[in-house]
């Protein structure tokens, strides 16, 4: 995948990229997603998430919390960049496309695993569309704080795929299997209130208030001993490595099927007013 976007970081304390930026203040790293239209995750985003993952090695020494939020009005993140996925896979042999998809998934898994395993307490402050890869990014965090506009879904089955960024193993870690099956097998979305009822979201706040609530939560977290917090997190939130690796295998097997290319083509070329509805 293209890595030409690398090298924009000024220092580990502050970064301004094309898909995301971060800054550190009072021990809180605030990561802002700002790629139009709705923070679709493609090769550019991956490069910058990898830079964030690398910077954590230094930032964890002084910070105590990390907040990820979006400044895009439509939502937190609409998921993988399907247009890029489709365009790139069309330009090469199928076996090469599958190989590159596997490499991409392994890289994004590594970045999300790094965030998941961080000694910092991590918070996703979400609003609006939090779909597919966006939900998977939020699930890598310790807490999800949602405003009332938030909407969650795993719509991948409509493309003939499963979520590929670690979503199912992480969701299984956090909530009941019945809800996972409903989300996965129907592709439906649900709102923040429902997400809180099933234990996915810890706090629901008024529209536009998620970041403020996340900052207040991060400030509270900063009152406690870091070693204790990190130890508690490690104990209660093990990373499901085996299932995550299995997910990549299943995704790549499915990706090789013709139905996926047809599904991607249908989505990318759709003029339907409701392409996000399953």
């Amino acid at each position, binding site marked *: 995948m293209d890595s030409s976007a690398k090298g924009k970081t000024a220092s580990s304390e502050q970064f301004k990229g094309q898909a995301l930026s971060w800054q550190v203040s009072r021990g809180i790293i605030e990561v802002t997603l700002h790629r139009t239209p709705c923070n679709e995750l493609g090769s550019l985003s991956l490069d910058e998430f990898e830079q964030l993952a690398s910077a954590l090695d230094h930032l964890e020494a002084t910070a105590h919390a990390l907040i990820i939020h979006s400044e895009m009005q*439509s939502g937190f993140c609409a998921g993988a960049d399907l247009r890029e996925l489709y365009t790139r896979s069309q330009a090469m042999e199928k076996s090469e496309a599958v190989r590159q998809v596997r490499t991409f998934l392994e890289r994004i898994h590594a970045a999300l695993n790094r965030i998941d395993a961080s000694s910092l307490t991590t918070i996703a402050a979400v609003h609006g569309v939090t779909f597919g890869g966006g939900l998977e990014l939020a699930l890598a965090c310790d807490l999800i704080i949602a405003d009332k506009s938030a*909407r969650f879904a795993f719509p991948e089955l409509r493309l003939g795929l499963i979520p590929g960024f670690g979503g199912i193993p992480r969701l299984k870690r956090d909530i009941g299997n019945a809800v996972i099956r409903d989300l996965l097998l129907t592709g*439906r979305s649900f709102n923040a209130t429902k997400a809180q009822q099933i234990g996915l979201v810890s706090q629901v706040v008024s529209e536009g208030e998620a970041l403020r609530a996340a900052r207040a939560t991060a400030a509270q977290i900063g009152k406690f001993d870091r070693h204790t917090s990190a130890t508690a997190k490690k104990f209660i939130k093990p990373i499901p490595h085996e299932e995550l690796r299995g997910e990549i295998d299943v995704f790549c097997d499915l990706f090789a099927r013709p139905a996926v290319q047809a599904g991607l083509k249908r989505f990318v070329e759709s003029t339907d007013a*409701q392409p996000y*509805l399953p």
Partner: protein
Amino acid sequence: MPTAEKTLDEILSLAAAHFKVPREKLSPDEDFFKALGIDSLQTLDLLTKLENHFHVELPDYELQGVTDFRTLAGKIQARL
């Protein structure tokens, strides 16, 4: 439980206010995508607003093919 007409009226008022369209320009049998000038992501926003307002859960696959306010109101009414 509100009547179907009241539900429909509330939907029209809510949609008009949220998407800043004059209420009097919206009619029950109108295509709400065109009337409100909204895309698919904004449709999900509208769905969330309606769920929060009416305190219902409406799976979005039930809205597949729904384009007018009256049918939308019927879907919500069925869950009140």
